[in-house]
């Protein structure tokens, strides 16, 4: 129970500025990156016309997301945004699943990870909008339908980032707190494995998919 709300940190002093780094998040993010690389290596090793199980999984993921991106963005932008969307989903999926293993923690349990990814999606969507529509048209859309609604439109765009990142963070954090509390109450008997299955695997998959889909939708809203 004591582990709820505790964050282990590294504090550096570089040139008079105090840098605080969440050590668990950094380490677990690198573990996740290693796992994704291992998955890629296993899936692409010994490729063949008759796919092995890992190649099958990877092909399914790639094909599925290619279709999703094509449906949302159309043929013209498919090649360009498909790698981003697919990589985002696989990274988040591994992030959310890694907490199922004992002693591991989800990097997405830290608001910094999710907020970083949300801000990344925000800049990509708006950069795309400026590139596709031109700066003038892009700025003009903030003053629609009436010019005095501009602050509302700006707040609406910023609220998207906050809502997308807090959704992922809250789901993973809430799930892990519920697991800790219930495990404490029942002394680790019988119930926690099912909770790990539900919060870790099911909610983790759904939230990773939702985060990816919303990033895709934000990009497609800006393109249209």
């Amino acid at each position, binding site marked *: 129970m004591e582990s709820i*709300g505790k964050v282990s940190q590294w504090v550096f002093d570089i040139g008079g500025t105090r840098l605080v780094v969440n050590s668990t998040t950094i380490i677990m993010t690198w573990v996740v990156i290693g796992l994704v690389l291992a998955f890629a290596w296993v899936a692409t090793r010994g490729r063949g016309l008759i796919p092995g199980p890992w190649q099958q999984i990877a092909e399914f993921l790639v094909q599925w997301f290619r279709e999703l991106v094509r449906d949302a963005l159309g043929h013209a932008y498919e090649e360009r945004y498909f790698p981003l969307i697919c990589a985002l989903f696989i990274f988040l999926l591994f992030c959310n699943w890694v907490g199922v293993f004992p002693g591991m923690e989800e990097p997405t349990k830290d608001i910094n990870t999710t907020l970083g990814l949300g801000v990344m999606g925000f800049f990509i969507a708006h950069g795309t909008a400026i590139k596709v529509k031109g700066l003038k048209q892009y700025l003009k859309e903030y003053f629609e339908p009436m010019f005095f609604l501009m602050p509302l439109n700006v707040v609406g765009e910023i609220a998207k980032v906050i809502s997308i990142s*807090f959704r992922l*963070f809250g*789901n993973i*954090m*809430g799930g892990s707190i519920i697991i800790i509390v219930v495990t404490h109450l029942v002394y680790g008997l019988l119930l926690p494995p099912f909770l790990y299955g539900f919060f870790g695997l099911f909610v983790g998959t*759904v939230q990773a*998919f*939702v985060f990816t889909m*919303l990033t895709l939708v934000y990009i497609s809203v800006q393109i249209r």
Partner: protein
Amino acid sequence: MAVEISGADIVRAAAMLGAGIAMGIGAFGPGLGEGIVAGKACEAIGRNPREAGLLTRTMLVGQAVAESTGIYSLVVALLLIFVV
């Protein structure tokens, strides 16, 4: 025997109470909304069982988005418990 309750204790108690109220009222809306979404999805699948996969996917995404207000209240409750 009177028990002294100082200002910090009252703040702590109010934070705990606020967390409970935030979670209780905040979970009400998303629960209602997600139930309606699931019911409508069941109706649609009953009418058109061939599209069950697409409908389930859309339903899950819609529910996860509708859930966000509940998640906000969870974050607020966590802040009240651990930060205040």
